């Protein structure tokens, strides 16, 4: 369980947090730019702020989607690995049993 949490942290959460951090700074920069560009125009500023809000929501959705995607990918890899390990251990056991039988 501990290993699993470590894997999730290293491959999914860490990157998602980094994305969140990057997106936050981008959005802040854009917000300031919107405020500066449309300082004299109220109508356009309203449209711009509306667009900005939707963009922020889109970013949050995108980060969630990507993290879910990578999480699923990781789980898939883990399951495949576990299956391979199981197979190899059962083969080993079988070969060990065989040699034991032969000796007997």
């Amino acid at each position: 369980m501990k290993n699993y949490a470590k894997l999730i942290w290293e491959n999914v959460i860490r990157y998602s947090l980094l994305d969140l951090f990057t997106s936050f700074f981008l959005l802040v920069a854009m917000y300031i730019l919107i405020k500066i560009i449309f300082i004299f125009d109220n109508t356009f500023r309203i449209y711009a702020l509306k667009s900005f809000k939707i963009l922020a929501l889109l970013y949050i959705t995108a980060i969630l989607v990507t993290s879910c995607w990578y999480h699923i990918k990781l789980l898939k890899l883990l399951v495949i690995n576990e299956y391979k390990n199981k197979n190899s251990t059962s083969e080993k056991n079988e070969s060990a049993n065989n040699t034991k039988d032969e000796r007997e």
Partner: protein
Amino acid sequence: MFDLWYREHLEDQAKTEITKILPRLEYKRRTSIAHYFFSFLVAVIAFVILFVTHISSPYNEDLKYYILTFGIILSGVLVIVSQFLKRNSNFIRYLIHVHGNASNYIKKRTFMDPLYWHFFTILLILCIPLLLLFVMTIITWNGNSEIWVTVGSESHNLHVESIKQFSSLILAIVSAQLAIFTFMFSYLLGRYSSQIVKSLMTHHTVLLLWAFSIAVLLLLWIFYLYGYPYLIEDYINPIFITIIIFSLIMTIWVCVSGIHPEKAVLYAGKKFARKTRKHVKKSTLVLEKKFSKFWAVFNWAGLDWRETERFKLYEPPSKGLPFVMGYLSNLFNAAYKAVEENQQDLVHNSLIAILNVLKTYIENRKTYYGSRDNVLNETNDQMAALLKATCNSPNEHMSTLVIRCIGNIGLYSLQIEERPSVEVPNLLYGPPPKRHEISLLWTGLLKEAFELTHKLQRTTAPYEAIDQLKLMGIISHNNEYFETMATTFFSNIMNIHTTSVNNKDEYHRLLGQKCIEAIMYIFALTSQDSRTYNCSIDFRPFNQCVHSLKRMAQGQFLIDKNNFTFEGFGNILTSKTKESQIILQDIFYLIMEQNVSEDRQKSIVINDLENLIDLVAEFAKIGISQGAVDCGMFINAFYEIAYLIIRKSPESMKKYECERKSDIPVLYERPSTQDQKEAKIFTVWRDLFSVFFDKRIIGLDWEQKMCAILGIGFTNINIRESELLKNQLLECIDLLRNRVIKTQIENNRNVDHWWPYLQLLGAWVSEFVKESKISIEIASEVGKLKPFHSYLHGYSGQSKFEAYGYPSVFHGDFFIPRMNNLMTQGYITEKDIKQIICWQEMLMNEDLLISYHKEIEKTRSPLREQYYKELREKKKERNKDNQTEEN
């Protein structure tokens, strides 16, 4: 001195380490930039899509929600895809590649063009709005009163006065621009060259600014004569006021940026290069029978109207040459003027401009062949004059710039072939030696440059001359101009070296060192070539390098006489103080590790290796004869080379030997490559031993290294199939034994330090050769002749076997010395180190050494007893004599 050298060494090491790390850091930085830039770009695009959909949706009530949904979905997809792409390393690498290319292109353009950004600014701020105005005027031209304000209408009458005033203002700006651009540019730059002024005055930015002003004037006349669009009725004054203000600002900006002569010269060079490409057209490639796609189509239609001069094979079209010479003379004028006025930046930029023109010229010129070129001949003369001018200037650094330019032109000139290349069917034989007369002009000039500048005090020009010669040598070697290399490169470097050696000061010693390093670099390149050349004179670069080094050694050892430095001849050639330094051991290793398969190649490789061993031995002997302090370094090199030979043959050679064995019957069974090399090593060993022994050299640790070679040989006897190694070793020991015994018997000089070594060798013979007769003879000779009391060495008390009469090295027992120069290069692996430790244990085996000591004691102990008895008796007699004298 050692402290200083050590500090310099550490500094160099730190520099190399940092240079290795820097590209990784730069890659990380660029990855981060690419990552953030991409994120921001996507965010902006997504925002613009959303913003546009928000603005456009209220205009169409029916499709309002569809438009909004479409915008949100589109920007959502864009954002999600960008999130995935951000983590895709291939995509980020592609972005970095694009970013790198774009930034390099912009850097190059801004460096060469003083008005690069001005053009785009004018285009964006002035031309695009003006174009929109024109488009609006054309669309609404003479329309009804709702869209077009006609002449004579009330509104037109209201603005007609202001339009008139704007027209006169714009006219004033046009004339001001004309005055500024022509008079100011010609006043400031005219003294350098009229062509440079012309090139700047016809710069596309200047032309765009003029065209813009004239277009504004035209628009104002249209507005005055025919009217204007209704839409801009209320904005005529603000629009034209803004245009006039920005136009003035741009004029001033262009003028201020354009009056830099340094940048103007660079731009002129770029422009001249472009014109050169136009005037000097490429060959029609008659021999290759290649057509460009364009002319292939025309030729098919029977319309091959290409200039007939382009069919010339050995010279470029004469029509374009006067233009190129004209451009070059303009740039040379600027350079002369700059030298006169002591303007280093301008000289530098003029030289870059000259190089630009010549580079473009040579790109097209190299499609023709020939050993003469008028443009390059004239440039050479001009350069020689410029070099003399810079040497007489108070700013001596300028000569370095000129020499660098000369070297670069020389390198470019090497691209022009004298005749079409001939295909050599048999790769074992090298190509027939090629000449390159055009490059001789430049190598000659570089040598002349050295002669002119080596006496100057405040310049690195002589170093630059040697560096440029070295670069030309490398390119000549790569292009296989071996005749040129033999007749000019090596002779020039040797002449420079002689000049350096004749001036006996530290500065010239460094110049001499630089020459040797240049030869060593070429030597490393040539060592990879195992082909023979069919020619009456030996033009083979490898042999040329050996010959040059031999000649240079004579002079260099004279400087090193009684003066030890880490930059001495021995150290430069054999001791690796820097990672980039090439030493003789490197070259030996390169030759040895060559992948050879053919009989002829193999014999050449063996021959080269033998030549190299001879070279090392000869240097050691010359060094000894001339009293050079660091000649012991050559013994070290010899020891390392011997180790490389004795330890093993490369796999490629072994394979050949196996194949050879099955090749029976043969008239003459040639010795194996390993035997050949070992025979050479031990022949040279005997030669060197005799010379060093006769010269009574003590204190270079050469005895240890020479005996270590024999020791390594002894440990390998059993794994050899032939008896050659054994016989060679016995021959060496026989020589050493005879020389030591003869000197001891004749009592010529003290050879006490050799007896322990002879004892050790005797022990090895008894163990590894199993020749009991020889080992017993040595034991008895050591027992009889070794002095019982020596003034040369005392017992250090720290070594284990010294008390038994074996040699002590650095207050310890004998050991196989470390191969420092081979270890740093990775020529010795961990497996080899284990093998060396194993050899060491075999050679210094306790049982062997003590049993052999006992063998010696059989002869020695009765003699010792007798010796000390005699001593005691003498002492007693002396005491008696003393007592009688006292009584």
